[in-house]
Each structure stands twice: as C-alpha cells, then as structure tokens.
C-alpha cells in the first residue's frame, strides 16, 4: 500500500480550483466513471461531461464539481485534472443552466439536421450535468437521468 492519501489538483485554463489531499476521487472519464484510490497505476484519460467528487482526508464526502471535458493524469500519489470547465456545485448558476437546457432542447426538437444538432446535443449535456450537480448539492431531489 502506498500513501494513505493522494494529492488532487483540479485546474482550468482560468484558475486552479483544488489542490488538496484526498483519499478517494471519482472522475467522469470519457469512457465512463473512474474511481481512483491511493496507489493507482499511472493512467491518462480524456474526460467526459460529468461530476467529479472526492473524499477528503477526514473521510467524509466533500464537494461536487461539474466537469466539462478535459484530461486527467493519474499517478500513484497524485491526480491532475485539466478540465475545460469546472465548477463547484455552489457556484453553478442554476437559472442559467435551466435556460441553456431549454434552449438546447428547443434546438433539438426543431429537428435541423445540420451540424447545429451536435452542438445543441453537447450544450444539453452540459446543462444537464450542471443542473444535476447543483441540485444534488442543494439537497433537492435529482431526477434520474
């Protein structure tokens, strides 16, 4: 067994969000969620759109972040998350996310089959994850999606 905890670093192009010791991390990998424990083999992955959560050294589950694509590098004692966008649940503007969701849905329903469709789909995905993370943190019920 290597160290009891790993260093989690979450950075976006604009700022560094997290740099602290944690005991467990859940990452939204592009091919599905990854659970990382101390002493994990070196790994490199692309990130999808999803939720990142971690347990801090006191063992309780701490903050959730909405992550929108990027990369993660896992080393035995260190997890580096290079996210394009990362927001703490508390920082998410729920109203804006809802508006974005409505907009994207409208686009999808309108049925244009040009490349806008892909963009709308991604936008919808982003909005949904934001809403999901924000709701979970605020203790409201989450619709299963």
């Amino acid at each position, binding site marked *: 067994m290597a160290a009891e905890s790993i260093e989690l670093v979450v950075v976006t*192009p*604009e700022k560094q969000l997290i740099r602290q010791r944690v005991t467990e991390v859940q990452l939204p*990998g592009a091919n599905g969620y990854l659970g990382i424990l101390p002493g994990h083999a*070196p*790994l*490199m*992955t*692309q990130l999808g759109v999803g939720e990142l959560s971690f347990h801090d050294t006191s063992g309780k589950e701490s903050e959730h972040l909405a992550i929108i694509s990027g990369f993660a590098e896992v080393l035995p004692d260190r997890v580096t998350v*290079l996210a394009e966008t990362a927001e703490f649940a508390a920082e998410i503007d729920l109203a804006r996310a809802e508006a974005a969701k409505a907009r994207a849905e409208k686009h999808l329903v309108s049925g244009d089959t040009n490349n806008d469709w892909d963009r709308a789909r991604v936008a919808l995905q982003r909005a949904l994850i934001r809403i999901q993370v924000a709701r979970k943190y605020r203790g409201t019920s989450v619709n299963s999606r």
Partner: protein
Amino acid sequence: MPTLLDFRRRIRSVKNTQQITRAMKFVAAAMLRRAQERALAARPFAKELARVLRSTMSRISEPQHPLLAHRPEERILVIVMTGERGLAGAFNTNVLRKASDFFRANKNKKISVIPVGKKGRDSLKKAGFNVIAEYVNVLARVDFATAREISALVTDLYAEEKIDSVHLVFSEFKTVMSANLAAEKLLPVEAIRIEEESAAEQAASKVDYIYEQAAERLLDKLLPRYVETQMLRAMLESSAAEHGARMTAMESATKNAGEVIDALTLHMNKVRQAAITKEIIEIVSGASSTA
C-alpha cells in the same frame, strides 16, 4: 504680458488635467492588479498541460499531427496584440515597432495579420496589410472563449495548409515599469517549454501510463488545448503589460502636471507682485506731485 486672470485660468485647467490623469492612474493600478492575478491563476493549467503533453509526446515514437507538421515558411500569419486604447505611453508603439521589425525580417514571405486590440487594428489596416480577422474590445476583459476562438481560427488555417506558420507578437509583463516585447512561434508546435521542473517531476513523466484512449487520440485533443493556453497566456500578459504601461504613463503625467502648476504659480506670484509694486509707485508719485 499675460494678466493675473490668465494665469489663474491656466492653473485651473492644468489642475483639472492632473485630476484626470491621477484618476486614470488609480484605475490602471486596479486593472493591473486584476490582470496580474488572472495571469497568475492561469499558470498552473499551462504548466500541467505542458507536462502532460510532453509526456504523451515522448511516448509516441513519431508524433504525427497536422499541428506538428513543419513546412517551409512561405505564408506567415502574425497575431499582433496591442491595446484597445491609447494613453499608455509607448505601449502600442512598441508592440507595433516590434511587429514591423518582424515584417521586415520576413519581407520576402507572404504575410498576413490578425490584430488583437483596436490600436493595432487601426494601424495595420492603414499600412495595408492583409488582415484575415480582427479582434477588438477583447482585451479589456480577457476570457478563455476569445482565446479559444482565435486559436480555432488559426489552427484550422494551419491544418488546411493555408498558412505555414503562426507567430505571436505581444508584450510580456515583466514589471510595472517595463514590459518585454516577445515574438513567439505558435504553430507549428515546437519544443514545449519546460518551466522550473524538479527532478522528481521529470522522473514522474517517464512513467508508462495506462491509456484509456489511444495516445494519438489524446495528442489530437491536447495540441489544440495547448495552443489555446498559449494564446490565453499571451492575452493575459499583454493586458497586464498594457495596464502597467498606462499606470506608469499616467503617473508621470500627473507628476508633470504638478511641475507645470508649480512653475505657473511662481510666475503668477511674480506678476502679482509686479502689479502691486507698480500701483504703489503710482500712488506715491501721485501723492508727491500734489503735495
């Protein structure tokens, strides 16, 4: 001979100017602090990304990617970052001079430009350069979306082989008093800059990874990100340097205004004294003639 009233007016007007320059100095100082903080905040990402990219590239025997492809530099695209406004001392002039030095050095190549910032746009357009795109009013509030937009444009042009290299001309923020003019090559992506890397980190980058995706595919995603980060860094540096230059310029303007006021006040007092002396002489001579 200017009268007392003329002096009072001039002093008042200089004082007004001084108040404006002083206010501008404080605004620039506040903006500078913010720009500096953001430039600092963006550093960890750039550093981590460069490390991840380097370790990925070292693991692919011959990295093949459109953004890595070297071609003879015949068609050069230059991104020139100036300020949006003047009153920043020699800031804009310096950047433009650096750019024209660059143009002169590559005079027999086909050059096109993308100005970022209003001042550069105006001057480059007037000089008749081939302006591919322009970005104005983006440096006041630098955000990643703009950096990404510009990067997407140039990486597309590069991948389509419409241009053979992309250079950035901008001011690197050093201190408030001085900026370092930089001309950097953005594309093709060359040796990746390593910033203060410890031996431990170097050892760590030698580890073999489990790849969730093929390394080539990762590279495909990492390289554009890297270009975006470079662009963002240049924009943040440039905006910090602009505010720094403006702050210095406004400080010296305020000081100069103070000197002008002092000189004018001295003059005004001399004139006032001369007038009083003249009056006394008139009264005395008038009194002696009637006595």
